[in-house]
């Protein structure tokens, strides 16, 4: 029996959701952090979307948010010219790192000892979280605002994407530029998969897949509409993408075939990410909501329940919803 995807809507933000990130899998499950223009990033349980807490302290729109692997720390990048590090268990602010302009992106190393930041002052900064008073190391080179910066190659290298239409690969120890990719148009998003060293880049209507070490092109796939963000499934069989037409697209990575498209958001999709176990993907939109989507539609997982035909129409004390009402932010 064909099943129709029921996205789970997470409300609570009052402005567009511009970034989201998952943690790794911890003994308490996995977690999701969302960056929002309302300045109040939120932490949610990754498999259900249940709100856990809100990080209060930023005085401007939060443009980037990330969690460390075990979800004990969070970092956020904001328009108030600061990046902040938070205790993701208590919600307390741990560090405020002053910058000279809007901060757009933050990323922890795997051991959480170093935080990479980037933003409108065109500099990449490396903060030693064990000695936070020490001045950060700075890497200059980009000629426009930095949109996204990520650690790669076992934290030995850094990848950065900027409005100067380049993606640059830097060596951490020498702080020098190793390679550069030039595009005709601005790169809208970048995702890095350590397992397989794959870089997923979106620009215009294209989703490009590159080798993260050599920056060699693997393949490109074109979508029906301008794409703002894409994510490759951990098993590298599917990828999802979302953008200006408000829809989520699911493609086969091997054949490049468009498999499905889902409507649901009431505004452009700004970010989309697969969960660490690949069972769901989350999307953040201009409409102020996050939505969770099943990878295998109809499977029992999180809040989704597989209902067999004989159970339908029977009175159930469990209160099953078939079409959850849309809750507007």
């Amino acid at each position, binding site marked *: 029996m064909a099943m129709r995807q*029921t996205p789970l809507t997470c409300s609570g933000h009052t402005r567009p959701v511009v970034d989201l990130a998952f943690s790794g899998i911890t003994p308490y499950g996995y977690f999701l952090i969302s960056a929002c223009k309302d300045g109040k990033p939120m932490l949610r349980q990754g498999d259900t979307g249940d709100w856990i*807490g809100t990080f209060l302290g930023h005085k401007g729109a939060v443009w980037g948010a990330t969690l460390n692997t075990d979800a004990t720390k969070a970092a956020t990048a904001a328009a108030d010219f600061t990046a902040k590090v938070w205790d993701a268990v208590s919600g307390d602010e741990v560090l405020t790192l002053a910058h000279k302009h809007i901060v757009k992106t933050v990323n922890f190393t795997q051991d959480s000892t170093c935080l990479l930041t980037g933003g409108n002052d065109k500099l990449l900064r490396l903060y030693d979280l064990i000695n936070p008073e020490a001045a950060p190391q700075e890497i200059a080179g980009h000629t426009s605002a930095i949109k996204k910066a990520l650690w790669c190659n076992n934290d030995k290298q850094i990848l950065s994407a900027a409005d100067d239409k380049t993606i640059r690969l830097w060596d951490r120890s020498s702080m020098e530029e190793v390679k550069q990719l030039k595009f005709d148009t601005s790169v809208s998003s970048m995702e890095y998969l350590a397992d397989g060293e794959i870089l997923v880049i979106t620009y215009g209507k294209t989703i490009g897949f590159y080798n993260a070490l050599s920056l060699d092109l693997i393949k490109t796939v074109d979508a029906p509409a301008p794409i703002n963000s894409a994510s490759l499934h951990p098993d590298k069989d599917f990828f999802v993408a979302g953008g200006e037409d408000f829809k989520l697209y699911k493609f086969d990575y091997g054949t490049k075939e468009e498999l499905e498209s889902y409507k649901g958001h009431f505004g452009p999709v700004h970010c989309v990410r697969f969960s660490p176990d690949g069972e769901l993907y989350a999307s953040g939109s201009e409409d102020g909501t996050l939505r969770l989507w099943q990878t295998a539609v109809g499977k029992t997982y999180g809040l989704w329940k597989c*209902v067999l035909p004989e159970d339908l129409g029977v009175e159930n004390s469990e209160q099953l919803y078939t079409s959850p009402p849309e809750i507007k932010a």
Partner: protein
Amino acid sequence: MATPVSVLRLPKGPDPNSRGFDPKSARFIALCRTSIATSASSETNAEQLPREQHARSVLRETFLRCLLSMTNKKVHFLMHERVKVEATFGASDIDVLNFQVSDLHTPIGVQKEALIRCQDVISFTFDS
């Protein structure tokens, strides 16, 4: 016609009264260090721990009683950036993030109702 996937319930939304991070959750209890580390984390001294815990409870209780007795009284706040203001204390929120005050005397006038951000406060005094 495809059947929509059933859902047990909707994701829980934010609590309007608190910033969350439930201290009763399993994760919090297991992982959260108290703001001032106990001496138990460095050396194990079995007799010292109950005394230290008792001292913590006394301090916490004193602080809470202080907040109670401050209600509707004039309080002087010493804050960062050399700010000294006086106001009538109303209440604190549950996480001690904000103090609700009335008639806040500032160098640029008297604010009828205001919220003072606790992280900006260095100390406060009042006559009990």
